[in-house]
């Protein structure tokens, strides 16, 4: 019995810790750098990368067919002109939001627990944005011709984009978001690239990492300006991340379709984005910490905090669904009432109720601490939320469109095999990029991990 009390206390403090005890500056550096620098690539990496790369080929094949035959190979037509393509755009963009939230907003709020998850969450953002932009770009059918009505550049036709259209706002919002996310990620990587340059054994890798580090030498002068830049970028990314999904939601809210034309859309979309994003961070981090033995750095505390954010944003999303249904009844508008009745009892009702199951009911299990701290359960619930968020966009987009104002214009919608292959293909693209990232880059920010060490272990002097 005498042995039990202290060990139980120790376990308690370990589940609360952001970093396992006993780590030093050297051990953090060596552990994270060695993941990128090790010579032998584990077999599991090749298996995962191989499967992802095969899925990526499905995307390339689909896009080739689409360019050859036209967007008709996707199941979109009148009245459902936006199908899987826009669902997937919104789904991927939403997933990206958690990365920026973790790296920027939690930095400004001084949440130290962001430190061990921000790097791969930011990478996730970049890759998700890359997947997202494929859909609207190819939805235009002939992307090289779309350039002149999407981007303001002086062309020989003398044409300019219509800035009064939310679709043009999308172009600005998403391209700015992608650029700023890439800048933020790269700036965060510079000191770690220098660490890898100094640790790399082979000349070739020294040169590669050395070029990426651009001569960074950790000088006090460097850090002085660097800290300022990092905070400024966080401050700039914070309103940006809130605005991106707001603008995406305005694509719908500015339209006159019942089920789209609602003022609740911006906050409800942003909450949904963070919800889906944290689910994806959990989906990626749980296998990653297991495969790379990162339990010391991505502790139960991190997973539990992410689960709590997921629960909170899930409840906001549930409020959004409730308000949509309430306003359909309270407005007394026959089109709104029909839209909601059609969602709940129409031909696609099964998707609506599955959505409620995945996004509203299932996450409430996270109230229970034992489930919240069980990695297998967290992994499964994160997948459930990922599916739920995809269903949400399905319910909003095609289900609102397929019953037009005039019954003579009603139609039905289903994704074709090219819709599915494009969607699975972008999952392949996402995972391919992610596998490359976890093989060659530091998956955790090394220099930021050093700052959260206690002073006795070589951490920053606290004054």
């Amino acid at each position, binding site marked *: 019995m005498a042995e039990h009390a202290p060990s139980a206390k120790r376990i308690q403090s370990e589940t609360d810790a952001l970093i396992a005890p006993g780590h*030093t*500056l*050297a051990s953090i*550096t060596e552990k994270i750098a060695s993941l990128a620098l090790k010579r032998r690539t584990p077999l599991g990496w090749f298996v995962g990368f191989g499967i992802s790369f095969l899925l990526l080929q499905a995307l390339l094949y689909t896009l080739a067919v689409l360019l050859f035959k036209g967007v008709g190979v996707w199941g979109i037509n009148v009245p459902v002109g936006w199908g899987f393509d826009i669902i997937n755009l919104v789904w991927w963009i939403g997933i990206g939001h958690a990365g920026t939230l973790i790296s920027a907003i939690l930095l400004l709020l001084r949440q130290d627990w962001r430190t061990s998850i921000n790097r791969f969450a930011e990478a996730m953002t970049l890759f998700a944005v890359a997947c997202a932009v494929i859909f609207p770009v190819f939805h235009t059918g002939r992307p090289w011709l779309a350039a002149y009505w999407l981007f*303001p550049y002086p062309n020989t036709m*003398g044409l*300019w984009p*219509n*800035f*009064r259209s939310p679709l043009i*706002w999308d172009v*600005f*919002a998403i391209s*700015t978001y992608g*650029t*700023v996310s890439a*800048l*933020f990620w*790269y*700036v965060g990587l*510079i*000191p770690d690239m*220098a*660490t890898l340059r*100094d*640790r790399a054994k082979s000349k070739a890798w020294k040169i590669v990492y050395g*070029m990426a580090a*651009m*001569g*960074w*030498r*950790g*000088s*006090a*002068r*460097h*850090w*002085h*300006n*660097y*800290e*300022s*830049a990092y905070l*400024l*970028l966080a401050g*700039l*990314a914070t*309103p940006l991340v809130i*605005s991106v999904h707001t*603008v995406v939601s*305005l694509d719908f809210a500015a339209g006159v379709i019942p089920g789209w034309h609602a003022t609740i859309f911006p906050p409800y979309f942003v909450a949904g984005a963070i919800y889906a994003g944290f689910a994806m961070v959990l989906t990626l981090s749980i296998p990653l910490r297991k495969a790379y033995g990162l339990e010391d750095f991505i502790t139960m505390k991190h997973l539990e905090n992410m689960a709590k954010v997921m629960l909170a944003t899930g409840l906001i999303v549930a409020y959004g669904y409730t308000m949509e249904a309430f306003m359909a009844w309270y407005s007394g508008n026959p089109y709104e009432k029909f839209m909601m009745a059609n969602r709940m009892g129409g031909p696609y009702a099964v998707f609506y109720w599955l959505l409620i199951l995945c996004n509203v009911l299932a996450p409430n299990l996270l109230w229970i601490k034992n489930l919240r701290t069980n990695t297998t359960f967290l992994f499964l619930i994160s997948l459930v939320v990922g599916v739920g968020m995809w269903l949400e966009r399905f319910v909003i987009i095609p289900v609102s469109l397929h019953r037009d104002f005039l019954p003579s214009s009603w139609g039905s919608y289903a994704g074709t095999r090219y819709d599915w292959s494009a969607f699975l293909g972008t999952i392949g693209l996402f995972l391919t990029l992610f596998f490359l990232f976890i093989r060659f880059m530091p998956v955790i920010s090394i*220099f*930021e991990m*050093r*700052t959260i060490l206690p002073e006795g272990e*070589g*951490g*920053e*002097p606290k*004054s």
Partner: protein
Amino acid sequence: MRRRGTGTPDIHGVMAEFNTPHDVVEAAHRVHAQGYRKVDAYSPYPIEELSHALGFHHSPLPLLVLLGGIFGLVAVYGLQYWSAVIEYPMNIGGRPLHSWPAFVVPTFDGTILFASLTAVLGVLALNGLPEPYHPVFNVPTFALASRDKFFLCIEARDPKFDRDKTRDLLRALPGVVDVVEVEH
């Protein structure tokens, strides 16, 4: 023109190595008090006290970023006004040509984009990066500056620099592990 300072030989400076952040901050305070100004310190993570000890002033970056953001705001709003009102006026559903509420979103994004680009290019420019070669890398143990060691370097271009006296000063600092000359 590298030979500056008083009777300096052709070296970049003298560098001291420390094991703890506390020691390097203390060393920076003392060296600064002795009147040395061309001093730099190296650490594996940002230490705010270190830049204070070395007497660095506020970074000009926030001002540059503000200017970048204002430029983006004016440029993108101007582009929209010019293209929608002057160059290519189109009557779309009878809406005014100068529909300023619709111009807010691209203007906001342009502001963020230019401010962010300024922040990144600004931090690189202020730090003199990319810099393919720097003498401090000639010190064999300097690779540990990105691991767990702390360094302080007094550069030869400092007017007070004297090869022997400066080296002795560094050697006398508390917690110093090693003092070496940095070759060009």
